[in-house]
């Protein structure tokens, strides 16, 4: 028997304190499409990054074609015939399509001449094989996202890869392009290539894949032939455990409507017709898959990408939010998802970070008042139990959870009416996570309207009074708090209730 193309045994990987993979087993045979399924944060992207050599595993073995692959680097992975088509293509925007393909495929000295005709010919061939109608001479920057993805696939095809990884390749494709892609994938399978196919669209997995492996919390829950599974079974495997963790109970009775959205949309960021009310003292969860438009909605509400249709009202008054400054002035606070880039300025002290959004109130006449700053900072450090060496420790010296608390403190200091939390517990260790949950509860009890964006299904179910589910930029369902995880997942995936039941 020939060995499998790719065999992963007990892979482990941690980032700081968070364990992304806790011993994953996976194998891929030649000529099969093997789907990889799991919730956001289940470890899929970490797994891919290890296979493509971008990350080094902490433990476990990788066998490619039956041979042990040690110290896998991007170049080594490429040489072994592993190619990956990313969701967000990593192409050179200023260069032409033909050149982008050529830079991946051509090898040789720096003084060799470049055959433009051959490059264009090769690019045209590859693009034709996947049925894409793209002129090889166009600059990549002028292509749409799906077109760029097709170029990525052409690159993978051209490199003669034996193992092709596709990370949500259809996320932004039109129906026609999707069909085309399926043909390409079947084509690849026929020629003996192994395809690892990652998608949230269950119908695609049923249409395309031979086997499916489900990841949950960094572990593989099981590998099954697709023919033996149905949608409900897959969802059950993904969600798995019941909401086992203890979430603090909701103690507040929702009051007046604070934030009211009527048909809010933003063409630039793909948010479409969102209608939603958030009451004082209420936690409204926003569930959905990555790219469903939840962060985009938050950015609209915070004035980063202003809305171009619909109405936003605060306490019954219609408001326009054209910049973060205006949003802050109206009493909206946004704790962003990417805290290292947006939430905390890592190089600056905790105190400076915490007071950054209240310069106007705390420092009258723009004069720094160190005493007031210090006492405010110490208050929040105590209040939120921030573990740090002092109020002037740089933000970068804190752990993820404590950085999150600093980011939260910055916004609490503005005394907001609406608090938007975007993935507040992502990459945060268990202890800090439950502390953050308690804080959110307390804030709601104090009368804050909270919008909680989270990809952690138990969290969003356990913490929310109501759960909005987004899909493709629109709010598709609003479920009561404590709703069934399967129902939320089914709504996020867009399958019918019947299929999920």
């Amino acid at each position: 028997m020939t060995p499998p193309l790719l065999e992963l045994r007990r892979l482990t990987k941690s980032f700081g304190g968070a364990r992304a993979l806790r011993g994953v087993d996976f194998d891929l045979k030649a000529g099969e499409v093997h789907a990889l399924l799991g919730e956001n944060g289940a470890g899929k992207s970490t797994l891919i990054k290890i296979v493509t050599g971008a990350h080094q595993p902490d433990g476990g073995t990788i066998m490619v074609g039956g041979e042990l692959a040690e110290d896998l680097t991007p170049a080594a992975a490429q040489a072994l015939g592993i190619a990956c088509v990313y969701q967000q293509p990593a192409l050179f925007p200023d260069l032409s399509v033909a050149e982008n393909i050529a830079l991946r495929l051509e090898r040789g000295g720096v003084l060799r001449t470049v055959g433009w005709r051959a490059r264009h010919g090769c690019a045209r061939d590859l693009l034709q094989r996947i049925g894409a109608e793209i002129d090889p001479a166009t600059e990549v920057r002028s292509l749409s996202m799906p077109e760029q993805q097709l170029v990525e696939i052409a690159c993978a095809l051209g490199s003669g890869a034996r193992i092709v990884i596709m990370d949500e390749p259809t996320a932004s494709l039109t129906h026609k392009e999707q069909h085309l892609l399926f043909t390409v994938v079947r084509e690849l399978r026929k020629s003996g290539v192994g395809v690892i196919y990652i998608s949230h669209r269950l119908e695609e997995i049923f249409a395309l894949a031979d086997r499916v492996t489900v990841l949950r919390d960094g572990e593989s829950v099981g590998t099954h032939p697709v023919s033996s599974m149905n949608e409900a079974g897959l969802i059950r495997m993904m969600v798995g455990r019941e909401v086992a963790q203890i979430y603090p109970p909701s103690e507040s009775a929702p009051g007046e409507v604070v934030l009211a959205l009527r048909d809010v949309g933003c063409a630039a960021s793909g948010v479409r017709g969102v209608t939603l009310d958030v009451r004082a003292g209420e936690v409204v969860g926003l569930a959905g898959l990555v790219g469903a438009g939840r962060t985009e909605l938050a950015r609209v509400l915070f004035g980063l990408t202003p809305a171009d249709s619909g109405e936003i009202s605060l306490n019954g008054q219609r408001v326009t939010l054209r910049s973060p400054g205006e949003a802050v002035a109206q009493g909206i606070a946004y704790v962003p998802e990417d805290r290292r880039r947006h939430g905390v300025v890592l190089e600056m002290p905790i105190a400076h970070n915490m007071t950054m959004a209240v310069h106007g109130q705390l420092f009258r006449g723009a004069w720094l008042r160190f005493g007031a700053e210090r006492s405010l900072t110490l208050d929040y450090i105590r209040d939120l139990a921030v573990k740090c060496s002092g109020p002037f420790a740089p933000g970068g010296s804190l752990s993820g959870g404590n950085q999150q608390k600093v980011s939260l403190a910055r916004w609490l200091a503005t005394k907001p009416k609406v608090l938007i939390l975007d993935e507040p517990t992502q990459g945060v260790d268990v202890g800090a996570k439950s502390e953050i949950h308690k804080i959110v509860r307390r804030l709601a009890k104090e009368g804050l309207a909270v919008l909680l964006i989270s990809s952690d299904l138990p969290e969003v179910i356990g913490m929310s009074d109501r759960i909005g589910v987004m899909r493709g930029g629109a709010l598709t369902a609003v479920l009561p708090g404590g709703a069934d995880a399967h129902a939320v997942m089914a709504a996020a995936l867009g399958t019918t209730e019947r299929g999920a039941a």
Partner: protein
Amino acid sequence: MSRYFRELSVVGALAVALIAMAVFAPAFFQPQPLLSLATREAPTLVVACGMALVIICRQIDISVGSMFSVVSVCTGILAARGWPLLLVLPIAAGLGAALGALNGALVAGLRLPSIVVTLATMVALRQGLNLVRQGEFVNMPDTVQWFGLPQATGQWVLVICALALLAALGLGLRHLAAGRFVYAVGTDAEAARLAGIRPQLVTFGVFVFIGALTGLAAMMNIVQSPQVQPLSGMGLELKVIAAVVVGGVAISGGRGNLWGAFAGLLLLACVAPALTHLRIEAYWEKAIQGAIILLAVVADGLRERRQA
């Protein structure tokens, strides 16, 4: 066609300028002054080619003026001592390359910002030259001037050499793998690394290259006049950066080509003589050059905004 829109618009501006000159100051189009102008600008063209490379690679080198002066004086001394020009030529290129390698090592090796590094080497080299030479001119023997050829022939030789270099480099940038690597690194150094290119090495190479080209340009400079001035390279950096930027090479790297830079240089080079012929005082030259640079970057900025 849209791919070369930026270059074509510069050529268009140049054409408009020339037509305006033909109408208002036909005296501009006399062969002898034009040849002199071309000869004077030949070294600038060679340096501009190097600068285009550096800027495409998303770096900048403002020390070229000082390098130009240093190499001019050094090779001038050698040539004045009777060294054969054929031997001085590689020395000029080599000296320039060595100076460029210093910049390259600091920028690529230590990842320092090129603007500050070359600012420092610019001053250090210029003042170093002044320190050693105290502003002294180098007198050149007649045998060196115009390579010992008649003046007109010598001028043609220089112009043709510069154009040949431009053609070779322009084609190389398009058709050699090394040229494409410069674009790749300038567009996205990280993506280039993932594609198996070594960005630091390419950056270093580009600085060595502009050094060598500046050396050659200095050589083209010393054969033009009976004396080599130690200040000959003053302000050269600004002139070539202006030409390159006006010619459509994006300061953010990865875009543009030498043909555009060439057109940009022609446009800027015409400013001074055009002013004379239009009876505008020559003192406006610098201001107009500055305005043209700003106009070019503003146009690029507006265009980028519309696309985004």
